[in-house]
C-alpha cells in the first residue's frame, strides 16, 4: 500500500515545514547556541563584566565530587521515573480500555494531572507526605513506618519519583490508550477463540504491537526526567537531604537562578544536552531494532 505523498515542486515542501523550522530555530537552536556561548564565559550577575575563560567552567565541574555524584542520582531518578511511569500508565491504559461503562469519566480523571504545573505537583505530594500533618505520612506512621523525607535520602527520592511519575502518567496513558485502541480486535478475538489466556494474549499480541508507542514514550520520559523535573525537586526537597535528590537539571536551575552563576549553569546545561542527545541516539540505535512497526 503506497501512502506517501509525492511533491513535484521543489519549494513547496520547504515552505510547508518553514513555520515548524522557525519555531525550532528560535526556541531550540538559538537558546542552545547561547548556552554553548555562555558556557565559555565568566560573568558577574548583572553582566557588567564578561570574560572569556575557555573550558574553565567545565574543568571546575568535573573536579567537583558532588557534581559527579549527581550523575548517579540522576541515573537512578530517571530510570525509576521512566520504568514506573511507563508500567503504571500501561496498566491503567489496559484497564481503561476494558472498561465498558463510565469510560469517559475514568479517562478524564486519568488525564487530569497533566494540566497541573510541575511545581504544584511537587507541593501537592509534599503536603501529603509532610510529617506529621500529611495524610499519607500520618497513615504510614499508624502502620508503624516512620516517614521522614527531610532526613532520609530514600524517602526523599521516593517522594520526587512519585510526584514526577504522577505528573507524567496522563501523557503516557493517553498514548498507550490510543495505541491499544488501534490494535485490531479481530487479532485478539482470534487468539481468545484459540484458547489463549488474557495474559498470554497481552504478552504475545498486544505488547509487541504497542512497541512503537512504548519506544516513543521511553524516549519522551527519559527526556522529561532529565529536563522537566527541576520544579518538582525545588518544591519538594530542594535537592536534599544532603545532595540525595540533587539531580543534574536541578543544579542547572539552582546555579543559574539562585546562585546567579550563569557560566557554570550554562556549562552544565551543555553537558546535560550532550547526555540526552547521546541517550536518544543510543535508544534509536539499539532499542528501536526491537520495535515492530
Amino acid at each position, binding site marked *: 500500500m503506497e501512502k506517501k505523498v509525492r511533491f513535484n515542486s521543489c519549494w513547496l515542501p520547504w515552505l510547508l515545514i518553514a513555520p515548524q523550522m522557525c519555531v525550532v530555530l528560535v*526556541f531550540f537552536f538559538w*537558546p*542552545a547556541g*547561547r*548556552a554553548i556561548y*555562555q558556557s565559555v564565559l*565568566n560573568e*558577574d*550577575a*548583572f*553582566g*557588567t*563584566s564578561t*570574560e572569556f575563560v575557555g573550558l574553565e567552567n567545565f574543568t*571546575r565541574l568535573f573536579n567537583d565530587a*558532588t557534581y559527579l555524584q549527581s550523575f548517579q542520582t540522576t541515573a537512578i531518578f530517571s530510570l525509576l521515573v521512566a520504568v514506573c511511569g511507563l508500567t503504571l500508565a500501561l496498566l491503567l491504559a489496559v484497564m481503561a480500555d476494558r472498561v465498558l461503562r463510565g469510560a469517559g469519566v475514568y479517562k478524564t480523571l486519568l488525564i487530569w494531572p497533566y494540566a497541573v504545573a510541575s511545581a504544584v505537583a511537587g507541593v501537592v505530594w509534599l503536603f501529603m507526605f509532610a510529617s*506529621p*500533618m500529611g495524610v499519607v505520612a500520618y497513615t504510614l506512621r499508624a502502620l508503624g513506618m516512620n516517614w521522614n523525607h*527531610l*532526613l*532520609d535520602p530514600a524517602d526523599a527520592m521516593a517522594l520526587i519519583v512519585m510526584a514526577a511519575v504522577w505528573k507524567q502518567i496522563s501523557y503516557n496513558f493517553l498514548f498507550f490508550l490510543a495505541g491499544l485502541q488501534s490494535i485490531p480486535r479481530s487479532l485478539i478475538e482470534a487468539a481468545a477463540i484459540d484458547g489463549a489466556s488474557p495474559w498470554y494474549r497481552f504478552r504475545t499480541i498486544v505488547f509487541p504491537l504497542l512497541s512503537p508507542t512504548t519506544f516513543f514514550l521511553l524516549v519522551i520520559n527519559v527526556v522529561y526526567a532529565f*529536563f522537566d523535573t527541576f520544579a518538582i525537586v525545588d518544591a519538594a526537597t*530542594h*535537592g*536534599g*537531604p*544532603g*545532595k540525595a535528590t540533587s539531580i543534574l*537539571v536541578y543544579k*542547572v*536551575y*539552582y546555579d*543559574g*537562578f*539562585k*546562585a*546567579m*552563576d*550563569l557560566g557554570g*549553569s*550554562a556549562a552544565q*546545561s*551543555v553537558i*546535560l*544536552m550532550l547526555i540526552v542527545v547521546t541517550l536518544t541516539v543510543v535508544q534509536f540505535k539499539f532499542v528501536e531494532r526491537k520495535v515492530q512497526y
Partner: protein
Amino acid sequence: MKQSTSNMTAALALTFAGLLSQPVQAQTEIQWWHAMGGALGEWVNDLAKDFNATQTAYKIVPVFKGSYDEAMTAAIAAFRAGNAPHILQVFEVGTATMMASKGAIQPVAEVMKTAGVAFNPAAYVPAVAGYYTAPNGEMLSFPFNSSTTVFHYNKDAFKTAGLDPEKPPKTWAEVADASAKLKASGHACPFTTSWVSWTQLESFSTWHNNEFATKGNGMDGIDARLTFNSPLHVRHIENLANMAKKGEFVYKGRGNAADAVFVSGECAMMTGSSGLYGNIKRNAKFASGISTLPYYADVQGAPQNTVIGGASLWVMSGKKADEYKGVAQFFAFLSTPEQAAKSHQLTGYLPLTLASFELTEKSGFYKENPGTDVAVTQMIRKTTDKSRGIRLGNFVQIRTIIDEELEPVWSGKVAPKAALDAAVKRGNEQLERFQKANSR
C-alpha cells in the same frame, strides 16, 4: 539551554511590561521592586501611598516580584535588557554580590548627595547601617527592613511541661533541660530552628564573639575564608546532634520551613527571625514569648551581639538625575523618626534610625508589647571586629552547602566535626571563586 529560554521570555515579558507602563502623566514614576508578600506587602504599598500623598512631583510604584531571590533574578534579567527598576530590595546574603556589581548600582550616599537631600549616616542604627557600608565608609544601600535571630517559645507548652512560662531558657544548657522536660510531658517537637546557618552558625558566632570567617567575617576584604569548624562550633553542633538523637531537637527543613510548625503549635521552642513576631501574633493560638538567642555561659565574651538578616534597598544605575532626586526624597521620607518608628512597631523589623528607636521607647510600646525589644537590644550594642556582621561572596551557595552537610548530622549518619570540615572546605572553594572573579 533551559535558562536561556526563560531569560529570554522574561526579558520579552519585561520589555512589553515596560512599553505598557510608559508614563503618560507629567509625574516622574519610580519603579520599586520588592519581595514583601501578605501583610508586609500592604505595609510597602502604604509607604508608597503615603509618600506619594506628600508631594506631586514623583510617584513611587511598588511592584511585588515574588520571593527575595525571584525579585533579584527578575531585576538582573531586566537590567540586562536595559529595563531595571529604580529601587530593588535585596536580601542580606545578596549584599556582597550587589557590592561587587559596581556598574549596576548607584551608592545610596551618592544618590542623596547629588540630589541635595540632607543625609546623615550616623543617624542610622550602626549595627545595621554598618553592614551596608563599604570599607571606605560610603553607605551603599538603604537598610530598609532588618531583622535578627531570636528565640521564640510557646508559653502554654511550658506550663504543661511544668516550666515557668516567664523564665525562658537563657543558655544552651537550659534549652537542653527545657527540651527534656517538654519531651517528658509528651511534646513531640520540643525544639526546632529556621535558617540553620543563620541562627546556629552565623549569629551563633557573633553572639559568642567568635569568627565565622576571617577578615572580620569578610567585612574587611574579599579574601576571607571560613572558620566555623572551630572547637566551639563543633561543640554546639554536637550538642544539637545529641538533642536530635533524643528527639529533643527536630529538624524541620531548610530556610524558614520551621516557622510554620512553631506557629501551628507543633514545636514548642525555636530559633528564628525576629520578623516572625507579626505572624505569631496574628496566627498562633497560644501565648508565646520572645527571648534572646541562647548561649554557652562558659564562653568568654558571650553574649556579644547577633547578626542582621532581612533586606536593604539598592538604587540601580543608568537612570535620569531627576528620577534619582525622587528616590532620595523617598529615602528621606522613610528615615523620618515618625515614619521609621511606625514601620518598626508595625512589622517587628529593627528600627531604622536611633531617633525612631528612642521615639518607640518613649511611647511605651516595648512595655505594652513585651519581647519586641529583644531584637533591638541584641543589636544596639557596641560591636567588635568579630561581631560587626558577616558579608561573604557566594553566600547563597555557602548557606546551601551548610544545609547539605548538616542534614546527615541530624540523622546521625555523619559526625559533626566531619560535616563542618566538609562545609568549610566546600564553602572556601566558593569564596576563592568569588575572590578570583572580583579581583581580575
